[in-house]
């Protein structure tokens, strides 16, 4: 095997935090190399060092046997390293073609010959079987296609090494399949892929070799053909994880439950102005977890936002303990005891520029004892924040640190601690485990179950069927803004759910 890229002793330090600790890594030509590890293991940092976003404090990078200096992203692109970030670097209101051309380092003249460039891009797309409408604007595209645009961008710059950071986190199962096909095709052409993930199954399916990262170090590199799954997990976690306990279902009997939330015939529009939620009615009982399943984009987000007071319902009613709360503002809902763990933590859940301490204030800053006669009670707030940080084991060195510097899992824990700390009666949790590693996911599940057992009602939206079945008492499936089916979690299996998610038709056949 020929080596394309070799890292020697890469070390990157942020303050007191050693993100990468003398990492050695070899990438062969034509392989898919999976970088497996929990959140905060240092995977993304390592890749940013390769792609020129960070400059490592120590270590050397060799490209095809020669040492290279990667000081800026442009340097990396010039070598032939392309990175597809977890958060896409696309300009929303430009077309796909314009986004691709923008990234182009080659043939950059003052005046672009758009027609000729378009022909070239089309040729490129055809040769890799990547199909996107070049004239569509980015905001019009679903996430899967945006990612495809990112990949085309990288290929347009003729990348020999393509780095994908958690590419499947935002994809539907179908889109994931498509992505895998593309990656296999790319490696067959002699290009190499680094695939960052924390999902074991994925790693085993797609990877030619797997490197496990933990606490900034590469613990071991395997060929995926001869690997022990349990060993992999242990290396990743650094501890034996206990078998997931078979959870007890809700203590309260179904028919005796008092109805907490009653949604009747709700209609909600999405950002494009089309109706995304079409006449949904549902009930959530006291101490019940209602799971909401569905392929992303079938109205879950709009439903959640309408219930949380962030989006106007155009028709229908919502009752909370028999009180009409249709289109009530978020503050009123929170005062009633309804909390919301939002889908997008960067957009809604937290303010990255604020300190960790200030992030604990979101949604409760106006309440005693956080504030008294308009004045923030700093001492109390700090004490409160420290308490929850300790309780939820959030890794923070200083509560005055900006929240954007926390790792994704710790950010989610912060939101969870903040919202659950309000001792809610109803929790609306939208994809609360998205992007979290196994331990953090487990933590979230435990917390939800703990609150359910205390009598809190929970709406739990997720795209992971296993998780839904495991946590929920009851699951409803959304398809095109309507309820395609409702069933008790005990009765649900992945086939049935998948069947319903596809609208009663075989799951992916409708998609082109």
């Amino acid at each position, binding site marked *: 095997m020929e080596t394309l890229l070799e890292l020697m002793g890469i070390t990157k*330090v*942020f*303050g007191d935090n050693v993100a990468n600790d003398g990492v050695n890594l070899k990438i062969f030509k034509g392989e898919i190399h999976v970088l497996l590890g929990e959140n905060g293991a240092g995977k993304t940092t390592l890749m940013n060092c390769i792609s020129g976003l*960070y*400059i490592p*404090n120590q270590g050397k990078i060799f490209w095809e046997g020669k040492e290279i200096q990667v000081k800026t992203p442009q340097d990396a692109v010039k070598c032939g390293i392309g990175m597809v970030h977890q958060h896409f670097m696309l300009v929303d209101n430009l077309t796909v073609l314009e986004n691709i051309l923008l990234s182009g380092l080659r043939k950059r003249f003052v005046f672009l010959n758009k027609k000729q460039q378009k022909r070239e891009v089309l040729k490129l797309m055809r040769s890799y079987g990547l199909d996107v409408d070049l004239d569509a604007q980015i905001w019009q595209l679903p996430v899967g296609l945006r990612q495809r645009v990112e990949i085309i961008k990288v290929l347009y710059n003729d990348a020999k090494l393509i780095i994908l950071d958690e590419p499947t986190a935002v994809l539907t199962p179908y889109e994931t399949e498509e992505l895998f096909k593309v990656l296999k095709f790319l490696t067959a052409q002699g290009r190499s892929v680094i695939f960052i993930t924390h999902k074991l199954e994925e790693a085993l399916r797609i990877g030619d070799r797997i490197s496990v990262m933990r606490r900034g170090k590469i613990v071991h590199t395997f060929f995926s053909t001869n690997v022990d799954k349990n060993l992999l997990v242990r290396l990743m976690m650094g501890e034996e994880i206990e078998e997931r306990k078979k959870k007890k279902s809700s203590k309260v009997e179904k028919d005796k439950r008092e109805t907490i939330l009653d949604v009747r015939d709700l209609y909600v529009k999405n950002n494009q102005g089309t109706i995304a939620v079409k006449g949904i009615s549902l009930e959530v009982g006291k101490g019940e977890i209602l799971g909401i399943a569905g392929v992303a984009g079938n109205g879950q987000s709009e439903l959640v936002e309408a219930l*949380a007071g*962030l989006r106007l319902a155009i028709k229908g009613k919502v009752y909370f303990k028999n009180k009409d709360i249709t289109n009530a*503002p*978020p*503050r009123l809902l*929170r005062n009633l005891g309804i909390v*919301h763990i*939002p889908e997008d933590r960067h*957009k*809604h*859940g*937290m*303010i*990255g*520029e*604020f300190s960790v301490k*200030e992030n604990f*204030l*979101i*949604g409760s*800053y*106006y309440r005693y004892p956080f*504030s008294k006669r*308009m*004045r*923030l009670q*700093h001492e109390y707030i700090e004490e409160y924040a420290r308490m929850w940080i300790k309780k939820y084991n959030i890794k923070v060195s200083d509560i005055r640190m900006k929240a954007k510097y926390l790792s994704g899992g710790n950010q989610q824990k912060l939101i969870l601690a903040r919202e659950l700390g309000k001792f809610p009666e109803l929790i609306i949790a939208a994809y609360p485990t998205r992007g979290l590693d196994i331990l953090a996911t487990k933590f979230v599940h435990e917390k939800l179950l703990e609150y359910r057992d205390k009598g809190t009602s929970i709406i739990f939206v997720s795209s992971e069927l296993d998780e839904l079945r495991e946590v929920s008492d009851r699951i409803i499936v959304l398809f095109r803004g309507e309820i395609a089916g409702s069933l008790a979690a005990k009765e649900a299996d992945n086939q049935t759910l998948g069947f319903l998610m596809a609208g009663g038709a075989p799951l992916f056949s409708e998609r082109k």
Partner: protein
Amino acid sequence: MSNRKLISFLRIFEKDSVIESVITPIIGLIVGLLIVAIIILLQGVNPITAYQELIFGAIGTKINLFSTLLKFIPLSFTGLAVTLAYRAGVFNIGAEGQLYIGALVATWVAIKVNLPFYLPSLLALISGTIVGGFFAFIPAYLKVEKGINEVLTTILMNYVGINIMGFSVNSFLMEKGQTAPQSPLIERSAHLPIIAKLEGVHLHIGIVLVFVIAFLMHDIFWNTTWGFEIRSVSINIEASKYGGINVKKVIMIVMFVSGAIASLAGSTEVLGVQHRLMENFMIGYGYDGITVALLGGLNPLGVLVAAFFLGALRNGAYSMQIATGIPISIIYVVQAFAILSIISASALYKKFLAEN
């Protein structure tokens, strides 16, 4: 909202820590002065002599210091107004119009009202702030309800304010029997209280007001729920809504207050210094507020420091011009280099942080 990008670019100026916000304008201006020293040298003038004159003109004598302080007051007010709006994610480019309209209303009230014991001046200041606030409220309302970019509307409102004022001193507010576009002199009883007097230079109570507002603002930003709301709105509107903040209300109130503060720059100048309103009575102070705010790290206390130094620079520039022939406009070059150096320094510092 296209302003988001501008806001996030300007974040490079933002200094939350008091020490940083106080040191930044000083360092920036020193760098600016050093660069400009080369230009002065190329003019054939010894920069040391020029700067000696500059410093002497600014703070060399008590009278000069007082004059500097009289410039410091309006610069602070507009700087604070811009800072407040920015901290809520709104651009108030309209301080100029707000201070003109504030001065107009204050003058009108001061002339018409006949009450004892400083009451007319108090009344004049208050009515000035209300109308100035309302003047800034209009763009805020258009922004939150109609989605019209406030940068545009506030700039346009400047012309409205300046022209209304110009019309007034040419018509109903014109001094009787005068040819000039100016109001009659304001009665003694409506002058602002004077806290210090020095042969001809009267330091009015406005300076106390500046400090009160700056410290109040600082306290509100970091110690109250209002400040929390304001700062949330500036960074992340979605998260603010999620957190139960009435974003529209915050923006409208903040702009009202910002306009009110800007209006004080005009009304205190008329009631405390010029004692009559005249066309073009203080050109450019509204726009200078933006410079002051950026130099001062968009921090109320930093604004005080920046306003003092800019005031001193301006005041000193006259004596420098008279003594050495270096034109007054050179100080705008100093300002520009100060801002450039702050941008570069902040960017380098951020890069340094990112790498370590």
